[in-house]
């Protein structure tokens, strides 16, 4: 038997068997004795003053156990509000969410009361019996209107709607523009829609009075953060709160946020003295789960005669929604992303965040980076059009080069350290994508297609992704008495294969026996500190900790075995689940080493070693590992119907060393699919009264199998110098360049019609309108 490699291998996922046979365990699959079910009364108004909430009739309905408003919860709470915004000096207003609205509602879907009943059916019946007496107030439905003088205010008590403002600035941007011969200006609108994990949010809470333990099964990306907040809000010790994220049916960002429902359901379980379950339905997901929505940009680029970028400046207006549920990080990422992949010597972006009477905005997969990428790539297309140069050539002249790595940018991350692009060869990545995407021969193909009346187009876009947000994510590795390798981490799996990833990293140090590794994630009782899954951080942060802990435990196991086998450590190797003397039949099982290190009362430990065969590592990394890549897409546009078909899409990609190339492919392709939705389909609509008008999958379009092209992925591996594994994150990479590359390709398909597109998503109606607008005004083109 030989020791095997698991790191870097396409091993099967350890998650799959249960999920394929219907034995997964999602929150709604858990049923507890005496369990009750909850339904939330949500605001039908975008903005209203609440006069009275009369629950009498609802309480009288048979099967209803309780109807709770904020007044009922207050005795159990240390505060009425969720103060969860990340620190930033840029806030101008404090807008924390109330745990339940009691005097004012500020978006459709805001929770006001909760019904606890014997079934969800009855709880929903009771919702109709609650009398909500409220006076509608003026509504802020559009972030562009929000900052105008005399605009209605999203909250009655606030003086204005400017919730935060900041700028990202370096160099001498105005001087650069004053000296530049070519300056181009463009306005962009970008919309990113909603998370739409196939499993919505869901919570099951149980409070065991005899143990004084609150247990919350929660479909969340951040159980450890939730544990700390629940303890704070309910006046409990952290040891009295356990949060478990069981199988999670997708996250995509919104589930990293802590929601009012989590503390309300927990408190309800304490009040009704029975387990309470709340499962979000799809309509609730549309109306009350955080989204990413709208950004409006007004940007200029200055270039020299060789198309080298001299500077970029402009403004970004960001729709923040009605409350601060996360922070200023999305527009921060957006403004930071614009100049990242390219050499941009002078830069200033003035950013304003406006309150609106809509669901709070927090990160969706990509977290503002796709928008920054879109702006930069559209600007470079404009430069190419103006100077009559090849779009890829304009990019090649400006991309950060391999000889500049590591490349320090004059921009700080939110923690205060400078952005350092750690590794990669961006121009080579672009060239690889161009070659695989048929860039050089495309003009002829396009001409031939046009002769047949077909409009085909090609686009290119480059991106970088900041991954591995620090400071740490703990992992414990322990060898049990049975010889199993037990791995526990606060890393949280929501479908990416996190357990498999951790098992591969650990098994690499223990003979490559992945079946011998048991991974526990997303359970605060298994790991009491940490953050969870977001920002493409877990392979980097938890992977690094897993590697470190596994190395420590491996070294200790070998040292103990050398005492037990009376052999030199360098003569020992771990094969399967045993440690053997190389070239002999002498061995000891890992389980027996673990037992020996557990000790026997009254006896010395082997070699007087420290007891126990386990280690916890919390590898600290502050700098982010930057994944990078290039996309080339070919589309066909039907100029009669406006339909855009994606015919071919190549993504050349570098996420450092790959722990499992199959899982990397899956993450990238899934990200691309999300990006195609953002480019062509996904629009979370509101009317002029801020009433949501896309609240089901008939109105809000997710991409399906028939719209998805085959994706060709090209991998290159530039190891990150920032961690021992050389890995970079990958979860959000695929999504970042897609809206940019598709819109570029659509514009190219309409070459000759002089259609210019500066927004996404672009619907068939948008395409037709853009064509019609140009035809109406031929003199301007």
């Amino acid at each position, binding site marked *: 038997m030989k020791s095997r490699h698991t790191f870097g291998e396409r091993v099967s996922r350890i998650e799959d068997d249960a999920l394929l046979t219907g034995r997964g365990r999602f929150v709604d699959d858990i049923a507890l004795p005496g369990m009750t079910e909850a339904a939330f009364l949500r605001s039908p108004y975008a903005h209203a003053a609440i006069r009275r909430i009369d629950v009498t009739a609802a309480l009288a309905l048979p099967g209803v156990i309780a109807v709770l408003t904020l007044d009922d919860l207050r005795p159990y709470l240390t505060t009425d509000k969720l103060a969860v915004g990340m620190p930033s000096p840029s806030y101008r207003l404090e807008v924390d969410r109330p745990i339940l609205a009691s005097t004012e509602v500020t978006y459709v879907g805001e929770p006001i009361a909760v019904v606890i009943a014997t079934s969800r059916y009855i709880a929903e019946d009771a919702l109709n019996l609650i009398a909500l007496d409220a006076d509608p107030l003026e509504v802020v439905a559009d972030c562009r209107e929000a900052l105008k003088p005399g605009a209605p205010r999203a909250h009655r008590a606030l003086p204005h709607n400017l919730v935060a403002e900041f700028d990202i600035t370096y160099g001498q941007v105005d001087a650069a523009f004053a000296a530049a011969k070519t300056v181009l200006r463009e306005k962009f609108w970008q919309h990113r829609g909603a998370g739409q994990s196939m499993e919505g949010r869901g919570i099951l809470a149980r409070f065991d009075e005899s143990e004084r333990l609150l247990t919350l099964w929660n479909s969340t990306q951040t159980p450890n953060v939730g544990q700390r907040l629940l303890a704070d809000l309910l006046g409990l010790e952290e040891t009295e709160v356990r949060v478990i994220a069981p199988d999670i049916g997708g996250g995509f960002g919104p589930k990293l946020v802590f929601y009012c429902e989590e503390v309300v359901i927990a408190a309800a379980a304490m009040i009704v003295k029975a387990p309470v379950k709340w499962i979000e339905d799809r309509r609730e997901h549309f109306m009350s789960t955080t989204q990413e929505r709208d950004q409006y940009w007004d940007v200029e680029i200055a270039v020299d005669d060789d198309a080298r970028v001299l500077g970029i400046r402009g403004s970004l207006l960001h729709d923040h929604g009605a409350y601060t549920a996360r922070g200023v990080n999305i527009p921060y990422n957006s403004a930071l992303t614009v100049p990242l992949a390219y050499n941009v010597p002078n830069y200033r972006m003035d950013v304003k965040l406006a309150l609106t009477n809509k669901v709070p905005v927090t990160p969706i997969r990509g977290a503002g980076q796709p928008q920054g990428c879109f702006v930069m790539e559209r600007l470079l297309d404009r430069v190419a059009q103006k100077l009559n140069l090849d779009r890829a050539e304009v990019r090649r002249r400006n991309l950060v080069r391999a000889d500049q790595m590591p490349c320090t940018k004059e921009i700080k991350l939110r923690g205060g350290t400078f952005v350092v692009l750690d590794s990669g060869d961006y121009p080579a990545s672009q060239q690889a994508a161009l070659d695989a995407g048929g860039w050089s021969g495309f003009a002829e193909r396009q001409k031939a297609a046009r002769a047949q009346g077909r409009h085909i187009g090609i686009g290119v876009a480059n991106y970088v992704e900041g991954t591995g947000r620090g400071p740490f994510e703990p992992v414990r590795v322990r060898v049990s008495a049975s010889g199993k390798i037990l791995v526990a981490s606060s890393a949280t799996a929501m479908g990416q294969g996190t357990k498999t990833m951790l098992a591969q990293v650990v098994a690499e140090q223990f003979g490559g026996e992945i079946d011998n590794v048991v991974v526990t994630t997303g359970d605060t009782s298994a790991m009491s500190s940490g953050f969870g899954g977001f920002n493409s951080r877990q392979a980097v942060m938890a992977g690094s900790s897993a590697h470190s802990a596994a190395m420590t435990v491996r070294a200790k196991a070998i040292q103990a075995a050398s005492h037990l086998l009376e052999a030199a450590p360098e003569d020992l190797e771990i094969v399967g689940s045993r440690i053997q003397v190389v070239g002999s039949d002498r061995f000891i099982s890992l389980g027996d080493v673990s037992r020996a290190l557990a000790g026997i009362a009254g006896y010395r430990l082997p070699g007087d070693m420290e007891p126990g065969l386990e280690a916890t590592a919390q590898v600290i990394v502050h700098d982010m590992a930057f994944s990078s890549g290039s996309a080339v897409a070919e589309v066909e546009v039907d100029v009669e119907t406006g339909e855009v078909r994606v015919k071919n899409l190549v993504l050349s990609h570098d996420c450092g060393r790959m722990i499992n190339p199959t899982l990397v492919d899956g993450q990238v392709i899934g990200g691309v699919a999300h990006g195609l939705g953002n480019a062509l389909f996904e629009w979370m609509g509101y009317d002029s009264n801020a009433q949501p008008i896309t609240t089901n999958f008939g109105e809000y379009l*997710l991409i*399906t199998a028939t719209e998805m092209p085959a994706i060709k992925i090209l991998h290159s591996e530039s190891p990150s110098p920032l961690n021992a594994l050389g890995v970079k994150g990958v979860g959000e990479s695929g999504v970042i360049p897609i809206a940019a590359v598709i819109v570029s390709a659509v514009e190219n398909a309409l070459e000759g019609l002089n259609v210019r597109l500066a927004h996404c998503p672009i619907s068939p109606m948008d395409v037709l309108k853009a064509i019609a607008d140009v035809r109406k005004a031929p003199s301007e083109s």
Partner: protein
Amino acid sequence: MTGASRRAIKLQVNGKPHAAEVDVRLTLADCLRQEFKLTGTHLGCEHGVCGACTVLLDGQSVRACLMLAVQADGRAVATVEGLAGADGKLNILQQAFKDHHGLQCGFCTPGILMTLTECFADKPDLTEQDIRVALSGNICRCTGYQGIVDAAMDALRKMRSLL
């Protein structure tokens, strides 16, 4: 709901007889999940678009969220729990999903497996485009469908070789 709106039903689920007294408004999906503890059938949208709750009723795919349990009285339902062998061994389709990374979070997977199970039952000569059209009623947010389509084509090839 009043007592008069409850009704006794009997049906076959994965070849085994099941009986329950249910509210007439109980959906088939909730009946499977709550009454029969078969939680492999998932609810993703409850308005018949996402396809996560797809089960087979007398061999034909239905949305278990849009159908009442009482409508299934006397009929045969097949769910994801019935796909693997009695020994727990994955069937050809399930194994292909595992081999081709056809699932990530796994929430939509049961519905997709049931859609393909119906599809494969009488049409062994499907093309990739046929598979994509068949899957167009099932939404997956994780995979971009490529692994799913690859798995389906691989399973088809293996099934054909057994014919």
